[in-house]
């Protein structure tokens, strides 16, 4: 099987200029992620894991170096195109769930769909995704603050999947959950991987990293 390169980082550096001196959060990181991979990123606190994930998620731009997504250099894209990439190609799952508090669970999942298709979901995709992550319709009518952490993370997973992204990025998806709920969420991600999704996940937890097929370890802004 020919492995297709989904993401390629070439010498990516990210420097935060601070009055007390520049902080090099990423130091010439080169990395390739192929389609269908499940990669865990580990490393001590402050080693640059989140910074790396933000680069991959096109939320941030490298200070120097290049990031290619499906062979296209993101340096040549404007904010509009990068935003489009986040909407259509990337699904983000955060430690803090990051659901929109004004919208119900259903509407949160439907939101990226509306942004992409400019019409409500008549295909039943939102319902079936919510069903898949175990959120039933009465629960889907609740707003995020009325849901438990585990329930919110399930909704967030459904939201990340709604536009059928090529890449799923998770920043400590189980960080705010108890171990039982965390395991359920991880099993869900593992299941997505089995179905062929590409997943990149930042974690502190070796047990969680065990679900991945490859582990990248970072230290002081470098991949070791």
């Amino acid at each position, binding site marked *: 099987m020919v492995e297709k390169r989904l993401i390629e980082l070439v010498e990516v550096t990210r420097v935060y200029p601070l009055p007390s001196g520049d902080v090099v959060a990423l130091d010439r990181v080169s990395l390739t992620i192929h389609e269908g991979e499940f990669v865990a990123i580990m490393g001590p606190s402050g080693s640059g894991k989140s910074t790396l994930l933000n680069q991959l998620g096109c939320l*941030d731009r490298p200070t120097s170096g290049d990031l290619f997504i499906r062979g296209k250099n993101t340096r040549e894209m404007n904010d509009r195109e990068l935003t489009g990439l*986040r*909407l259509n190609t990337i699904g983000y799952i955060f430690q803090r769930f990051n659901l929109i508090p004004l*919208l119900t669970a259903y509407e949160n999942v439907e939101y990226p769909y509306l942004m992409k298709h400019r019409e409500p979901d008549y295909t039943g995709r939102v319902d079936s995704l919510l069903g898949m992550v175990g959120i039933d319709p009465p629960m889907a009518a609740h707003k995020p603050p009325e849901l438990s952490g585990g329930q919110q993370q399930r909704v967030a997973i459904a939201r990340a999947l709604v*536009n059928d992204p090529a890449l799923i990025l998770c920043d400590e998806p189980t960080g705010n959950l108890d171990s039982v709920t965390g395991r359920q969420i991880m099993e869900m991600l593992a299941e997505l991987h089995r179905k062929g999704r590409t997943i990149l996940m930042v974690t502190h937890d070796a047990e969680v990293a065990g679900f991945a097929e490859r582990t990248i370890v970072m230290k002081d802004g470098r991949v070791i």
Partner: protein
Amino acid sequence: MRDVILSLSLRSIRIHFLRSVLAALGIVIGVVAISSMGMMGANMTLSVTEELSSMANNLVVRAYTGGAGFGGGPGGSGASGGGDEFITESEFREITKIAEKYGLVYGVQSESDRIEVGDRKGRATVYGLDDKVIPSIFSLSEGTFPKSTSSVVIGPTLASRYSLKTGSRIDIGDPDKGGTTTVRVVGILEERGMSMDVNSDSAIIANQKLFNGIYGREGEYNQVNVILSDINDTQKVKSAILEKMNRKEETVTIQDSSRMLESITSTLSTMTTFVMAIAGISLLVAATSIFNVMMMSVTERVREIGIMRSIGTQKSEIRKMFIYESVILGVIGATIGAILSLAIGWVVVLAMVGSTDYFFSPPSLVYIPSAMLVGIVICVISGVYPAWRASSLDPIEALRAE
């Protein structure tokens, strides 16, 4: 499609209901202030125009004083002598000859003089008019028209200022300069309002014999008035008189009410603009409060904006969300303001103009949609900067916010 951005704006307004109501209240007040001031001005103009046009059939002929005494070259024939400010008896007859077939022509003599009622002293204008003319241009609210050379009628303002009734006595003149004449009030006139022929409301109206008895000045008229039967004759009569009288040199000028009407309406419109500008300040205050609320809304929703941006919401959509919010506040505020304007405008017009006859006429009501539009536009403008701020937040920074 169902606009999720619009529904987010609506939900934000609903969640911060009190804050939104207060912001919209500013717009309500601004719209009410502007539209009721505008309506007041419009109603005032309309009713003054109506009042004045009822006497627009008036021509007032006065002696030409414009270039008198200055190096006017051909004008210096010496014929005008010392009677420059007056129309002479012969000029009066000439004017009568030209204008009498078009209406009523009469001469007006007037002096401003000292008066004394009991022990109260003051000043008033004394008019001298032909016996036969007085009843045809004035109406009485009580008493009779003067028949003798010692009786007068007076205007209602003068009557109430000095508590004069029919039968009261007035001493006209200065005891130190030529003595006084005592006259008896036999009638009080109805209020006539402002006019350019004879301002009778605070004046004493005497017949010519009495006037000449006090002041002399026989055959010297301050003005000659023509009341035209047909208003369409105005220009014809005006140019006929001017052509005859001013053939050799400028002897008379003619004022017709249309000019006065113009100058009054233009004064009123300046005044209206000024008052509306003051009312406009209230909209400026409203703009500040909308701006404030929008900035608060942005600050409060930084994290939400970060979430939206990170999952692929364009900057333009974020901007739209806040612009929608300010437009909704503006539309709600302006609509409530428009409804209240009908009631408050009515009260203001009633109080300031005294009549609401023209309240529902288009030139008056047009101020309501105009003020609404101004209010909404102000809201949109106040929302632009906060919206821009929101859209240019860095998604990562925004996500970090609590």
